[in-house]
């Protein structure tokens, strides 16, 4: 297993290299010029040229790549064209809100979706199953921003229970931290609840038809133990896979929620950087996402060892 983990960790290097080259080239081939963005609406072509030279964008692409990638190899992601801050410090500032939101969302989604999915599978075809699946379809269909605005209107403006927007860091206190995360997490978790509940339902429903479940029931085991210990445990692999994919998607996919609730996370940083053509920041964030995806996939793969003793690496 150690060899498997080492191989997978080593695989990060070529992944990063491919991502680095692809992102670097794509950004240079995409229309848009950071110098023109920085210069502003009233600047002249001459001023834009001055800024371009100041940023080193007048150098050949290969030279720019060598300068940037040699920095990456030394652990230096470069400096934002705009903020005059290192990309690493910008990312560090944005990681906590995104991680906090992603973790709260996924925990909420698991806590709600898995029991719902199991219940739906247990009462397969009954009214509870149909109601839960109806809810699941609604969860898939309702756009995040619509749900977000509805919750804000009701909970924050009418009832004044929770703040409309913003983020408080953990160091500012546990309650302010959670208070600002409750609505965004609920908003974002709905679609994941729908997804995980559906997968759980399908997997558990299939497991419940297996011979070992029939045997367990024949042995006189209580129904709860049959469903949890035998059906759910054996249905866990696809559920964990979906949760893993969900978590990976969440880290880069919280843009709309971050915008609606004005949370200064990685999603907003990425969008702002793309819109401003802040090349070093985009490159840094995408490299980070790549590493995160590889590590999450590795963790999911390792979890199979625990969940399914038949799997060996």
């Amino acid at each position, binding site marked *: 297993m150690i060899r498997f983990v080492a191989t997978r960790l080593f695989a990060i290097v070529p992944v990063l290299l491919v991502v680095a080259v692809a992102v670097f080239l794509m950004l240079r081939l995409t229309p848009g*010029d950071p110098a023109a963005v920085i210069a502003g609406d*009233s600047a*002249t072509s001459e001023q834009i040229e001055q800024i371009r030279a100041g940023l080193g964008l007048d150098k050949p692409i290969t030279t720019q790549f060598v300068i940037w990638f040699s920095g990456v190899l030394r652990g230096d992601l470069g400096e934002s064209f705009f903020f005059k801050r290192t990309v690493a410090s910008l990312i560090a500032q944005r990681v906590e809100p995104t991680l906090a939101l992603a973790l709260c969302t996924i925990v909420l989604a698991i806590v709600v979706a898995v029991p719902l999915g199991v219940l739906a599978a247990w009462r397969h075809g009954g009214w509870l199953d149909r109601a839960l699946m109806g809810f699941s379809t609604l969860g898939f269909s309702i756009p995040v921003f619509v749900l977000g605005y509805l919750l804000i209107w009701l909970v924050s403006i009418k009832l004044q229970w929770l703040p409309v927007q*913003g983020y408080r860091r953990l160091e500012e206190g546990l309650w302010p931290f959670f208070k600002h995360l409750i609505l965004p997490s609920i908003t974002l978790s709905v679609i994941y609840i729908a997804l995980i509940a559906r997968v759980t339902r399908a997997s558990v429903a299939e497991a419940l038809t297996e011979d070992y479940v029939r045997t367990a029931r024949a042995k006189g085991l209580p129904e709860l133990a049959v469903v949890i210990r035998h059906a759910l445990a054996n249905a866990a692999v696809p559920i964990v896979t979906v949760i893993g994919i969900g978590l990976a998607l969440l880290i880069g996919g919280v843009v709309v929620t971050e915008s609606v609730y004005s949370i*200064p996370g990685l999603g907003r940083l990425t969008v702002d950087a793309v819109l401003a053509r802040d090349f070093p920041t985009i490159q840094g964030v995408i490299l980070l996402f790549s590493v995160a995806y590889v590590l999450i996939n590795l963790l999911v793969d390792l979890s199979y060892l625990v969940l399914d003793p038949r799997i060996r690496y």
Partner: protein
Amino acid sequence: MMLHLGAWLLLATLVASHPHASAQVIRMAPQSNLTVLDPGWTTAYITRNHGYMIYDTLFGMDGKGKIQPQMVDRWSMSKDKRVWSFTLRDGLAFHDGKPVTGEDVIASLSRWSKRDAMGERLYSFVDKVEADGAKGFRMTLREPYGLVLESLGKPSSYVPFIMPKRVADTPADKQISEYVGSGPFVFAKDEWKPGEKVVYLKNTRYRPRSEPASGTAGGKVVKVDKVEWLIIKDAQTQANALAAGEIDMIETPAFEIYESLKKNPQVQIVNTVPLGYQAMIRFNHLHPPFDNAKVRQAAMAALNQPAFLRTQVGVSELYRTCFSIYPCKTPYESGKGMDFIAKPDMKRAQQLLKESGYDGTPIVIMQPSDLLVIAKLPVVGAQLLRHAGFKVDLQAMDWQTLLARRAKKDPPLKGGWNVFFTVWASVDAMLPVGMNAVNANCDKAWFGWPCDPTLENLLASFARTEDDKERRSLAEQVQVRAMEIGTHAPLGEYLIPVAARKNLKGFVTGYVSVMWNLTKQ
């Protein structure tokens, strides 16, 4: 090094002396994210506004459009109008505790003159600028120049902000990395979270002028302890945060949320920039068909200001037609030479286009679909130009792509363009000199690159004269000539008032959004 350390300790003490326990804080959602902190590096209005927070200016423009002294205490001009002497007010100091000197002013103006069109023009007349004692400086001109004070007191980008010499000595093509001014607020760099919030603390050492605040002139009295700019990009979230009292004001609320804000009893709408913003169409003079003046005139004859304004703004109290290249209600407003714009005539447009020999080549109009404040203008423009007989290729793109593309001089089929639309603060169009759109110095002109010696001569004459009557006449001639050659065409004016909680008082009316004089009751 020790001096620097001492200065920073002083700054730390100055900041630490604030009564945090009962600090009065104004929280504002600014017009956009503050990305560039160097007001000499970008013309972006958000950076200009940041400049007004932490820097001071030699002169300001009051609410009536008059240039008034700000950092300057007194000044004089020699009889031959070539030597200008300025003395700074007593007690001016940078945030690091060092006094503001003539050397600081000279370095700041020198850097500004390398970036700003008006500064560049002023410095083309300057023979030398020298320090005159600790608090003074003397500007010697090669020949008299009529816009010395107007240049030093210009209220919009690039504003001649005064920085310490060591900062202002940064080459004009490099960003400054130290943000120390002598203005009414201190930039709290440690609390700045890019893309999240910008924090300014009251500069307790600042000595405001005794006159009441007006425009960018008068006493910049700070009545709160702290100002926070919270970067909230979503317009609806801004409105929700204002309604819930989480922020105190929205600098530029979106037109779409204007009516709902107006109906909120806890919210006031304050028009702090009465001149508003001017929308315009810009033609590329380098390539067919707009290299032909008659084609440009045909296009102008087809444009219809009410159609643009109705579609783009929608709220009738927030827009007005204005048939002048200078903003309406400003000294040089005139209707002369504006027939094409004032009396749109589709038949005339079609006739002019026919006479021009237009061969049906598609014209590329760039549409910035993500910049909501102008996104609809190109759609209306495309439709009107189609009616006039143009074959239109309306290309949607994001604003950043447009910014990069419009700087290209290539033909439209090779990545260039024919037409774009934009909007700018009307204050930027108050004077013919400094209004980018009328510069007609070919390659050095603003995007579109009109080339017309007659117009350039008129601008030069305007810059030289000090006689008000002659200036008015020259401004009118500039307008007539600009319309003859079709540098651009104004499409009307918008207002973007501030939305604020009703407990916020003391808004200063002028040309830019300023945070001094505000109280939170």
